[in-house]
């Protein structure tokens, strides 16, 4: 394969062994899976199905839509793919199995008769003053990210960081967080982290590096030939250090490079304003929003994701007295932003440029009539709003999109209202791709003696046309500061192990400019160094990271900013609060130069579009098990990446899903499996960056997916035309989690179906048209919701919501309370408890999830991982449906393959009142609590899995193998001490974060008071950037959750089963434009 070839060429023979590994991991082996080879239905057939008699239909995957016999067969299983997979994925012979079992029975027998071993206690010598063992402490810091730091509160148990939460007092984030931030905790404990500096492959120490580097640079006098290649610098202190270095060594250079660098936006800003500025969008004031390929609801890859998505969601809540915002999205790759939009237009990259220039030009003519109509309607809607509109371009939008956004926003009068321009979050803004190109030219010319890479990994992610590797080999001294001995670190002369941000001092700017001091939570686990330490080698090596940050902080903290008071107090306050007051950017008053928008004509032919991965960004989180396993937004791919294309292109080429194809662009080739992406534009292929790491990247990242950087070039970092696709490279079974949670049920309930011809056997229910007929997803347009506020329970004329069409229960979904098959044993309003004035209000826990606000960003899922010690199971186990996540985001597509709608529904244990699981457990391992929670008693569970079979929501997870890592020391530090680590053979599921409930209950009981509303936040609720999840006491009439559940739009999923779930959903409301309907 191509990468292997590259690495051998440049690096020479010394790394033979590694190269071998390299070959293995980048190869996509052809599988012999017969299921994948079976021909599916053609496009025409799929269309016929969709256009059939039924107007509405929901579906989750192409397989399901195609409804092949193979799929039907799969769905006959209660748990598709689990049952036939056997215990182990790799086959173990019967004899081998018996041997293993014999041994484990013997051990189990022995273990049963042995006492617990003696457990030692290691008390402190001198206990730290503020430490109360058993009580966590919280410290404020921030997660540095190139688009702006995310302020966090670190939950620290005996000084081990065990959970990250958003900082609720921070003016920008207001306590919200995102998937990357949540998962960055696991990076700290990553067992593959580099543990010591290396020099030419041998263990070394930082002192030797200091000596050699300082001396070498001193000898150059001017610093000529010394180049720092850094990540985007958002730390004011690091920028100040660089200033000192460039004063001392004027010839030294700094180049910043990130693969996802937002160059286009900066170039557009420079063209319009003459300098670099960031745009901050204020969506709370925007009635009409147009996004030009900006995925602003997808994650912190979009600068200001937290405030922007929160403001969008707030304005997208339905309230009959308020104007709901309307979002139009023009994009290539279907993203969560596109599917949350009221109108989405799928265009290939060059068509987006044409659209953007036509938009900026005020009219324009597009060849595609649909796009032209969209453009006309959007333009009119934007203009109608009277300045309460905004056009958004994101870090991955093209230059044309940015130029159009700038021009439109100023002509709409949006500047100063819905968008403001400020200084850049990047302390030293630059056009990174151009800078890197110049650097490589210098390297090739032999002008670079010392290449110091601060946290970057160019051997992996530099644009392919630069041939960075051969340039790299011409640099005599390369230094790599990195958390892992990655592709670059392995081949560098020097490797310095980088400290994690939870281990080191630095500072960082959030998106709004607010500076946070990043303080260490724990002594560096492996004595790592930060970029500050490396810069300081050339300045004053005796100063530590703390010294430089504290010294530089004097320029922005306290009296220096006119805040009064002494520095020490202000410094302590900044550390305590997690941000420095008065450091937010002031909006600039700028006038954009009017640029004539040159009309762009779309290119013909197949285009490739590069996007960062919604789970691992540009590859930096590649070795993070939580994120690798996280099903990606929209596609639900876990552990892989695929070439995403639409059915038309697949049909034209004759490609099947899961088929590996060869993509050729400018003579460079990669082999990629294909996944059908509903709503993807024609003649375009989207690939995500960041996968296909080599063996050096670590045990999780290595060998996963394919490397799209191998095609990406400097002149077209976003998209390029001229892609060729060749078939015949075998099959690759992609790991997609979608079909795992489809519930099986019998023919019995099938009789009521209106469209039973699609499902003649009655084999599956949660997906398919039943999702609509059984009203798993309910929504209405604003007009419908205003006409009938109770549409959630009465249905809508358009069929967006149909209620009580199908079900087990003769009364539909509203059985009388007494109709329960089981005696009404559990009441939660015992008069002797609730009635007495002095008694504490009895708790009755419940949850409400707003489907209007949920953007499917996955932050909740990762937060749940960290809070509940959920195990990572690995690709092969995920593929057979054994993923352990307690909550998942179900994506239901609806309608036409080309322009589907999609609905996101977080699905977690519903805590049913008459739960099916409880009634079938033979050992009482899952029981009801007096507060209405369905709780698991792990030590009772014997693993019959009856409960899981009887759960219609499919939210129970079984430890088929010993998934929890009992051996790796560093991972043990991360675990939440208040949650059991589950062993093999045990069922587990969402507990509503029972440990958090109990902790607050104990505190409240101790003080003889009722629990206040909002005092208990579940981990998912706390992480949710759009406040879609609300948890609380249903017995408290003032609680938010009680009010939400009293709303007319509140509904339960599969209510007709009379399981009476405690979790309910608020039906969505869309705000479509009648002219586009």
């Amino acid at each position, binding site marked *: 394969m191509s990468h292997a070839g590259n690495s051998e060429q440049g690096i020479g023979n010394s790394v033979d062994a590694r190269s071998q590994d390299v070959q293995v991991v980048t190869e996509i082996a052809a599988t012999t899976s017969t299921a994948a080879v079976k021909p599916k239905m053609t496009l025409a057939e799929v269309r016929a199905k969709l256009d059939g008699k039924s107007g509405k239909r929901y579906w989750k995957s192409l397989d399901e839509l195609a409804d092949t016999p193979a799929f039907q067969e799969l769905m006959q299983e209660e748990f598709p793919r689990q049952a036939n997979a056997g215990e182990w994925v790799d086959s173990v012979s019967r004899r081998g199995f018996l041997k293993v079992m014999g041994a484990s029975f013997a051990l189990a027998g022995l273990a049963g008769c042995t006492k617990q071993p003696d457990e030692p206690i290691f*008390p402190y010598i001198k206990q730290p003053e503020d430490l109360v*063992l058993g009580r966590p402490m919280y410290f404020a810091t921030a997660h540095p990210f190139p688009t702006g730091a995310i302020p966090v509160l670190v939950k620290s148990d005996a000084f081990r960081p065990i959970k990250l939460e958003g900082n609720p007092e921070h003016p920008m984030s207001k306590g919200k967080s995102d998937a990357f931030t949540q998962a960055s905790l696991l990076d700290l404990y990553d067992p593959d982290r580099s543990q010591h500096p290396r020099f030419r492959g041998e263990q070394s120490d930082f002192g030797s590096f200091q000596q050699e580097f300082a001396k070498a640079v001193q000898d150059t006098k001017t610093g000529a030939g010394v180049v720092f290649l850094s990540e985007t610098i958002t730390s004011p202190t690091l920028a100040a250090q660089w200033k000192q270095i460039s004063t001392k060594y004027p010839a030294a250079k700094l180049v910043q490079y990130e693969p996802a660098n937002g160059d286009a936006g900066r170039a557009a800003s420079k063209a319009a304003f003459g300098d670099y500025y960031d745009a901050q969008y204020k969506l709370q004031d925007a009635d009409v929003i147009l996004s030009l390929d900006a995925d602003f609801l997808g994650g912190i890859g979009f600068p200001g994701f937290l405030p922007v998505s929160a403001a969008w969601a707030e304005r997208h809540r339905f309230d009959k007295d308020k104007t709901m915002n309307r979002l139009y999205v023009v994009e290539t790759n279907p993203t969560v932003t596109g599917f949350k939009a009221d109108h989405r237009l799928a265009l290939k990259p060059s068509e987006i440029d044409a659209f953007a220039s036509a938009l900026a030009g005020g009219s324009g003519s597009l060849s595609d009539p649909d796009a032209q109509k969209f453009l006309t309607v959007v333009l009119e809607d934007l203009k109608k709003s009277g300045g309460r509109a905004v056009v958004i371009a994101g870090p991955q939008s093209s230059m044309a999109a940015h130029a159009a956004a700038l021009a439109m926003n100023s002509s709409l009068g949006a500047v100063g209202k819905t968008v403001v321009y400020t200084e850049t979050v990047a302390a030293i803004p630059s056009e990174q791709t151009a800078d890197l190109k110049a650097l490589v030219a210098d390297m090739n010319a032999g002008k670079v003696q010392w290449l110091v890479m601060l946290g970057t990994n160019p051997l992996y992610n530099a644009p392919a046309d630069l041939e960075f590797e051969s340039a790299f080999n011409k640099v005599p001294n390369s230094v790599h500061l990195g958390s892992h001995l990655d592709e670059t670190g392995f081949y560098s002369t020097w490797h310095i192990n980088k400290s994690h941000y939870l281990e080191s001092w630095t500072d960082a700017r959030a998106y709004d400019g607010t500076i946070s001091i990043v303080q260490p939570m724990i002594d560096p686990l492996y004595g790592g160094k930060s970029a500050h330490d490396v810069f300081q080698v050339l300045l004053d090596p005796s100063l530590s990271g703390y010294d430089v940050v504290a010294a530089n902080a004097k320029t922005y903290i306290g009296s220096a900013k006119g805040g009064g008071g002494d520095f020490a107090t202000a410094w302590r306050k900044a550390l305590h609060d997690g941000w420095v007051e008065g450091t937010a950017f002031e909006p600039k008053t700028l006038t954009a130069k009017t640029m004539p928008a040159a009309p762009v004509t779309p290119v013909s032919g197949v285009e490739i579009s590069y996007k960062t991965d919604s789970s691992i960004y540009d590859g930096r989180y590649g070795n993070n098990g939580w994120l690798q396993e996280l099903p990606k937004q929209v596609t639900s791919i876990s552990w892989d990446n695929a070439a995403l294309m639409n059915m038309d292109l697949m049909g034209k080429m004759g490609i099947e899903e899961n088929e590996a194809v060869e993509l050729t662009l400018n003579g460079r080739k990669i082999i990629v499996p294909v996944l059908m992406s509903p709503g993807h534009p024609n003649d375009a292929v989207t690939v995500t960056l960041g996968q296909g790491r080599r063996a050096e990247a670590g045990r999780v990242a290595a060998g996963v997916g394919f490397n799209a950087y191998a095609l990406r070039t400097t002149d077209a970092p976003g998209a390029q035309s001229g892609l060729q696709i060749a078939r015949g490279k075998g099959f690759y079974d992609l790991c997609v989690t979608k079909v795992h949670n489809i519930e099986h049920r019998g023919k019995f309930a099938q009789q009521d179906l209106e469209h039973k011809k699609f499902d003649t056997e009655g084999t599956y229910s949660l997906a398919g048209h039943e999702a609509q007929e059984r009203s798993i997803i309910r929504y209405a347009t604003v007009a419908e919701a205003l006409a009938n506020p109770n549409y959630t329970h009465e249905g809508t004329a358009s069929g967006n919501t149909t209620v009580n069409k199908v079900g087990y229960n003769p009364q539909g979904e509203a059985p009388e309370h007494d109709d329960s098959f089981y005696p009404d044993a559990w009441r939660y309003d015992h008069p002797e408890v609730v009635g007495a004035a*002095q008694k504490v209000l009895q708790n009755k826990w419940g949850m409400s999830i707003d489907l209007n606000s949920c953007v499917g960003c996955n932050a909740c899922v990762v937060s749940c991982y960290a809070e509940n010690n959920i195990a990572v199971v690995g690709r092969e186990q995920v593929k057979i449906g054994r993923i352990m996540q307690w909550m998942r985001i179900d994506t239901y597509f609806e309608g036409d393959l080309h322009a589907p709608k999609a609905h996101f529904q977080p699905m977690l244990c519903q805590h049913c009142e008459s739960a099916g699981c409880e009634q079938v457990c033979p050992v009482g391992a899952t029981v009801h609590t007096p507060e209405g929670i369905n709780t698991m008693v792990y*030590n009772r569970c014997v693993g019959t899995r009856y409960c899981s079979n009887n759960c219609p929501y499919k939210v129970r997870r079984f430890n088929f193998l010993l998934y929890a890592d009992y051996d790796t020391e560093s991972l043990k530090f991360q675990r939440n001490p208040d949650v059991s680590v589950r062993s093999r053979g045990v069922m587990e599921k969402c507990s509503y974060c029972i440990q958090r409930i109990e902790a607050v209950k104990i505190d409240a009981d*101790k003080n003889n008071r009722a629990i206040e509303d909002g005092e208990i936040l579940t981990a998912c609720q706390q992480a949710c950037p759009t406040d879609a999840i609300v948890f609380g006491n249903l017995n408290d009439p003032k609680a938010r959750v009680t009010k939400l559940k009293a709303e007319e739009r509140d509904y339960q999923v599969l209510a007709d089963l009379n399981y009476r779930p405690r979790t309910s959903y608020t039906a969505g409301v869309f705000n479509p434009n009648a002219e586009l309907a």
Partner: protein
Amino acid sequence: MAQVFDRSSNALARASLVLTGLIVIALGVALNSLQRSPWVTRQGQRPDQPVPFSHKHHVEGLGLQCQYCHTSVEKSSYAGIPPTKTCINCHSQIWTNAQLLEPVRHSWATGESIQWIKVHDLPDYVYFNHEIHVNKGIGCASCHGRVDQMPLMYQQNTLQMEWCLNCHRNPGVNLRPTSEIYNMSWAGPSKDKPVWCTASPTSGPTAQGVSCVTKDPENNNPEVALMGGKPLGNLRGMNLQLFDGRTSSDMPVIAMPASYVKFTSQIDLGHFLQDKYHIRTANELSSCEVCHR
């Protein structure tokens, strides 16, 4: 051919059937008692500790209060094992050369922990919380026994789930006034040694809600005199039924002398405290999630 089995084989066969049954039953009984035996539960065992620390000497002999060492018992799930510093506070002055204390001095000098062996060791899936127990009127001795009479620490109770549930299903039997939590010799009220309790009319943290005395508050008890106000004589020996089901808010809030109720049995006191301390119902207390997460 002669019979293979003699007639007596019938009896033998029957006997062996009975015997098998007996063996199965005996095995069951044996396993059951093994499960509850001190060998498994470690009840009463004294593991070899690095220092033969005597609670008897320090508590009974010197009168150290429990919280001098177990500092976090009121505010955390974990009562706390004292750091070496706590030992050194005194033992830098007294018994500075005692051979027994060598591990302590070694720890202090080298910074290595004294490696104790856990005596009260619950399984890892049990989330016991000291804080709520001591704040709700469960004394140390209720679970740990007369620690002040243990020269070497041992586990007084089985710490098995049935033992926990015995109390969680009927917490009244072990409740005591929070002022007596650390009193090792508290025995509960009896006919001979009654207890007089009063509840403050205002709500507040549990520990401050109730005060109890062991001397008759009528007979010029100094404890009561300090609180100001002479108790109402007619409350003496009043029928406790009146108080059952009533909450403190039902009492007049006007400044009235503390009214004491006399208790002569633990059952009555338990009911009184259950009400005043707002102990959750047995149903709630014995729910699984209370200990298992």
